């Protein structure tokens, strides 16, 4: 398998977890992988070079935002989003549908399209599956997402079947207008709420369209953690016969969530968490924080001349916690510094996880990781323990 042919090689498999190499048009990506989010075609004040130096090889941009500003036609004339933002590596774009749910008032879904009032102009907008793919083609991303009908997982169970079936019909429409298959991949998005039967039905109906990879959607919407973990676990199990497809769990970015999802067999994650939390002065750490977070605005850091943690990123090689403390919320500086570290940290976590899977060291990895995040293995939240026991890692707790 070669670079750019969009194939996926599994290089190691341990229990349900796997390490792979995804051969995307703008370079190989090792999985499991975290993808930082550059909503507007930029990662929060970082130069593309700085993003690449965190070892990031794939990032996410939002179709809705770029379609609105600067506009898909403008991005196309600028040579696509890669060229516009000077990013040499891979880009995944979402469908734009989810943003409408989160941004738009009076959202309405018809069989034809998502309709909503633009939060910017208050105009009535109509986004069809064909339109979503059209924009994503103009943006020129390496991975496009189908338009799906997202229903919050906190809704009543009976509300999920029709949206799931509609998502399947929309996938077919997206697929019909997906022409540039050599340079852009189209990912279906498995829906079905927290109901295993619906998820299973959705997998069966969508897999025929999945040529390159597949996403597990409709989660991270405020559902209970137990339901979230069980659904990811179940969906990955359903996808076991199609192991050549990388599995992307959308909207997941907390360290523990990513580890559990990867051990369930998921390969790709994205979240605004590390970049958003940087704005509030929070550094992600392996040890010594609270749930993996160090809140640098606290007074305990005034004279703390240590780096955030032992880390190879520019921030940790250059700056102390005391300096970061002194500039938080006063300038864009702390934001740049923490964004560099937090992205680097998430990618380092992925690297450690891949190493543990390759070397068959998952249990020792989990012991160290969980103790670092929660103080000790004995004090992990019950949902974490349940999820890991369900994946047969009860040894971690004995």
């Amino acid at each position, binding site marked *: 398998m070669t670079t750019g042919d969009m194939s996926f090689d599994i290089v190691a498999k341990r229990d349900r977890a796997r390490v792979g190499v995804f051969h995307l048009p703008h370079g190989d990506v090792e999985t499991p992988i975290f993808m930082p989010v550059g909503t507007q075609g930029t990662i929060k004040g970082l130069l593309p070079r700085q993003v690449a130096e965190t070892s990031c090889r794939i990032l996410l941009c939002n179709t809705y935002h770029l379609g609105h500003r*600067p506009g898909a036609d403008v991005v196309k004339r*600028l040579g696509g989003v890669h060229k516009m933002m000077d990013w040499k590596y891979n880009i995944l774009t979402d469908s734009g549908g989810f943003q409408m749910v989160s941004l738009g008032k009076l959202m309405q879904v018809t069989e034809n399209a998502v309709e909503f009032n633009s939060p910017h102009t208050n105009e009535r907008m109509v986004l069809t599956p064909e339109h979503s793919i059209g924009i994503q083609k103009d943006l020129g991303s390496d991975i496009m997402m189908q338009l799906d009908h997202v229903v919050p997982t906190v809704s009543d169970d009976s509300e999920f079947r029709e949206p799931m079936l509609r998502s399947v019909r929309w996938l077919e429409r997206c697929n019909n207008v997906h022409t540039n298959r050599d340079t852009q991949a189209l990912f279906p998005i498995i829906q079905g709420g927290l109901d295993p039967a619906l998820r299973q039905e959705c997998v069966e109906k969508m897999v025929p369209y999945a040529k390159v990879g597949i996403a597990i959607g409709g989660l991270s919407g405020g559902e209970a953690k137990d339901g979230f973990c069980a659904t990811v676990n179940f969906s990955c199990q359903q996808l076991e016969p199609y192991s050549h497809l990388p599995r992307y769990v959308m909207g997941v970015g907390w360290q523990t969530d990513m580890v559990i999802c990867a051990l369930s067999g998921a390969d790709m994650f994205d979240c605004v968490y590390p970049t958003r939390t940087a704005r509030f002065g929070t550094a992600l750490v392996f040890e010594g924080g609270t749930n993996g977070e160090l809140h640098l605005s606290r007074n305990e850091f005034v004279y703390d001349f240590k780096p955030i943690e032992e880390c190879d990123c520019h921030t940790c090689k250059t700056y102390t916690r005391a300096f970061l403390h002194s*500039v938080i919320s006063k300038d864009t*500086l702390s934001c740049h510094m923490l964004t560099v570290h937090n992205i680097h940290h998430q990618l380092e976590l992925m690297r450690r996880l891949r190493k543990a899977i390759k070397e068959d060291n998952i249990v020792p990895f989990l012991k160290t990781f969980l103790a670092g995040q929660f103080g000790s293995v004995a004090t992990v939240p019950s949902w974490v323990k349940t999820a890991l026991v369900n994946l047969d890692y009860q040894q971690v707790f004995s």
Partner: protein
Amino acid sequence: MVKAKLLRNTERGRTCNIESWGAEKEPKSPLNLQTPAYLTYTRFGHIPHLTWDVAQKELSHLEQKPIYQVSMAAIFECLLAIDEAGGIIKFASMPENCLTHLTIHDPLGRIASGFNKTKGIAVWSARAGRKDVCSEAYPVSIAAVKSDTITALSDYDLPFDAQKKRQGKSLTRTKAWNEALFSEESKTGGRPAFAPICGGSNKDTRFAFAKAFVQVPWASGFSIELWHFSLGPKVDKKQVYEKDVIAELLGETMLLLPQDKVRLVEGAFNPTQILHLIKLGVDLFDSSFASLMADEGKAFKIADDFESTWEFSVLDFNDAKFNDDTSKLYDHCSCYPCQTFTKAYLRHLVNCKEMLAMVLLTIHNMTEFDRMFARIRESLQLAQ
């Protein structure tokens, strides 16, 4: 000390060679900096919006050896930590052994009217608000920051409507504060200081300041205060910079200043104003104009015939006319943003209030600001 040698004195301004910069007991590499030149404006020990990684890689092509301007206003909240770290260079991870200058005000920060007292100067910071800096507090800051040079204390608050009595008080206070500050070498660590030439918009008061400080033994150079005429966005009681007014205001004062001492004007002034001040005999500025433009979403370029027309142009990316402008930023410029990005992308970033806009604009504006000074120095070589 700040040892300068006048090389040429022309119709268009002076050119000096600054041979050394800093206290004699802590010598750094020989400087040989030609003026006109600029101090590099910093906030929190950084060129605004640029981490040192970015500044060192993206601004490595700048011609002038940097002297970083550090303002009290931006750092007094963390002075104890700076002291504990061993100085601003270590605390803010600035380039090792770089040159630094400590000044009172942040040129782009709040410079308010009506708060100076007999016992000290009002300095403002975003979070902690006002702090009074006096001849007791300043030495503590100087010792913590460990800069190579300092701006002396001054009662700068003389706006256009200041009464005669207030002007007299300003000089009395300024003299008293500095007498106390320079009474013992230990208070400043023997750091060379720039003596204040204040006086607001009153020519006679300016002259009185010059007379009062021209002979003091501690003056290594002179700081000509023009805050009210600067482009600083948070200066109270600002006045329009009119060339005639400024020329009249500074004329006699400049004649009084010794030729072999450097004259510094801190604050944001545009390229035209900088050329004008150079003509009046000013040697040193700061780069806050470049940062101000970036903060406002703007890029600037000096005219091709800048030396004769004094003109410059501005691209304002707040303007929707750049929405689909697919051309690159500036052809003449070799900086990373100009070589890489389109105006439409810059417009997009400014439009979305993305931080990268300020990063890219700072890189370009600093590049252009540095190029402007190189051009000015070159033209002074040729001037009569």
